[in-house]
């Protein structure tokens, strides 16, 4: 049984699946007058195709992800929600290249991803700032590991610190900063490697509610300003609506894509806080709530 959105989604998937071919064919004269010629086809930054994941448990093989496919365009923010334990984090780990999928592929800028990629930044729930490094040294961590510690990249890291109000704390240690600031440092550490795609894995759930609202607002601004493509996993429905351009709802294990919901607040300068005050917020919330509860 398919919902309307699912059919929509499958069509869209079918469509995007052929994009590289279409791009390729466009160069060939006989296809120049193809009916697609005036369609604007944005290049997908991230394409996840038929990802399946199974793992061994005591009572046999358990399937965690069932043919997950979706595409994310440049600068888009996709929130992924789903019942707890449905494999949301597994999906992110696969996209990040930390886990190998049982089947399926992940493409970034059209290139297949094997292992971790410098194009992908991954932010975990905990900030994981290293206590023994100063803020500045923490920010450089990713560059150091990736052997990208060039003067330009260091200058970029300094600029990020300056832009987001952390420059004066560069010589402090993580223990001297508040939870919200630490999370921002962790974000800058991830952005310092200049990723095209940012994965957020419940990145704000360790913060208290107040801090969380401010930090999501800050982070949202940063991401939009830097035009970063983002995929966020969360169990917090309001958070998914307030930040996402699209919301992908996953079913209970084995996770399938139930729906991809486009979020539109008809506001050019939306921020998570203004979204929360919008009358449409409630509608989206109820919709997603229903989708999630339908599983139980």
């Amino acid at each position: 049984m398919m919902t309307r959105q699912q059919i929509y989604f499958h069509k869209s998937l079918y469509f995007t699946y052929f994009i590289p071919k279409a791009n390729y064919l466009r160069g060939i004269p006989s296809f120049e007058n193809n009916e697609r010629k005036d369609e604007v086809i944005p290049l997908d930054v991230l394409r996840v195709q038929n990802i399946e994941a199974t793992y061994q448990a005591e009572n046999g093989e358990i399937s965690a992800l069932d043919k997950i496919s979706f595409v994310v365009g440049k600068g888009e923010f996709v929130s992924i929600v789903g019942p707890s334990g449905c494999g949301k984090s597994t999906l992110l780990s696969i996209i990040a290249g930390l886990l190998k999928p049982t089947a399926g592929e992940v493409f970034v800028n059209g290139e297949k991803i094997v292992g971790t990629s410098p194009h992908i930044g991954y932010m975990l729930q905990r900030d994981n700032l290293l206590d023994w490094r100063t803020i500045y040294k923490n920010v450089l961590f990713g560059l150091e590991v990736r052997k990208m510690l060039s003067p330009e990249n260091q200058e970029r890291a300094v600029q990020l610190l300056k832009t987001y109000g952390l420059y004066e704390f560069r010589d402090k240690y993580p223990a001297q900063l508040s939870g919200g600031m630490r999370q921002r440092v962790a974000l800058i550490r991830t952005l310092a490697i200049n990723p095209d795609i940012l994965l957020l894995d419940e990145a704000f759930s360790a913060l208290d509610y107040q801090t969380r609202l401010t930090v999501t607002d800050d982070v949202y601004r940063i991401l939009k300003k830097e035009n970063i493509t983002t995929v966020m996993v969360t169990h917090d429905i309001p958070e998914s609506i307030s930040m996402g351009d699209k919301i992908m709802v996953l079913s209970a294990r084995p996770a399938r894509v139930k729906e991809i919901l486009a979020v539109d607040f008809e506001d050019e300068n939306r921020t998570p806080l203004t979204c929360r005050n919008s009358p449409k917020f409630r509608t989206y919330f109820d919709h997603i709530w229903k989708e999630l509860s339908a599983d139980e």
Partner: protein
Amino acid sequence: MIRFCQIAVLAIFIAQWEITARLGLIDSFILSQPSRIWQTFLNMAQNDLFMHMGVTVYETLVGFLLGVVLGTLFAIALWWSSFASKVSEPYLVVLNSLPKIALGPVIIVIVGAGTQAIIFMALAISLIVTVLEMLNGFRHTDNEYIRMAATFGANKRQIFTKIVFPYNISTLFNSLKINIGLSLVGVIAGEFLVSKAGLGYLIVYGGQVFKLDLVMASVIILSVVAAVMYEAVALLEKLVLKWYGH
């Protein structure tokens, strides 16, 4: 107040020792007495006390450094290869519970009766403890940190040098503190078995010729030496942690 009481306890202990000895309540031939220990100490200081101290300290430091360096290297190897670690586990457990002093005769036969045997004894005592302690620390490194490093594509060497090792600086210093004591145990035990110099030699010699003043004075000097070495490690720890920003 605490410091005052600490000193008071020591002063009272020494005073009652001296008084009971003078009153003949205890036999100062067997238990010695503070004033005689002091005399012996002054006498030793004019002779070769510093040579004996130097020998003991030298042997302890060599055994200690070897134990720490080799032990840490072993621990790194075992952290690196879970296969090697699984294979060696029963051996480490047995070696750890074996009283290393039982190996004394074997060590003497193999490396010869002399300074080498004493250093070997110190090494034998401290090595396995270091391996176990460091390995345990490495394994208990916060997994989230390692995951974070993995998201940046860190390889095993980077994970070790940038996360696991710095994370375990305090484990390292704990093991240094234990080791400085254990090395001293090894050195004294070694000097009991074979030696012509060192504080352990003085203690054994004093016992054999029934000069309990010499034994007591040596024991007291030994405890001062042990305390100074321990404090040196603690000071080093403070400096390193400050430099590391803990």
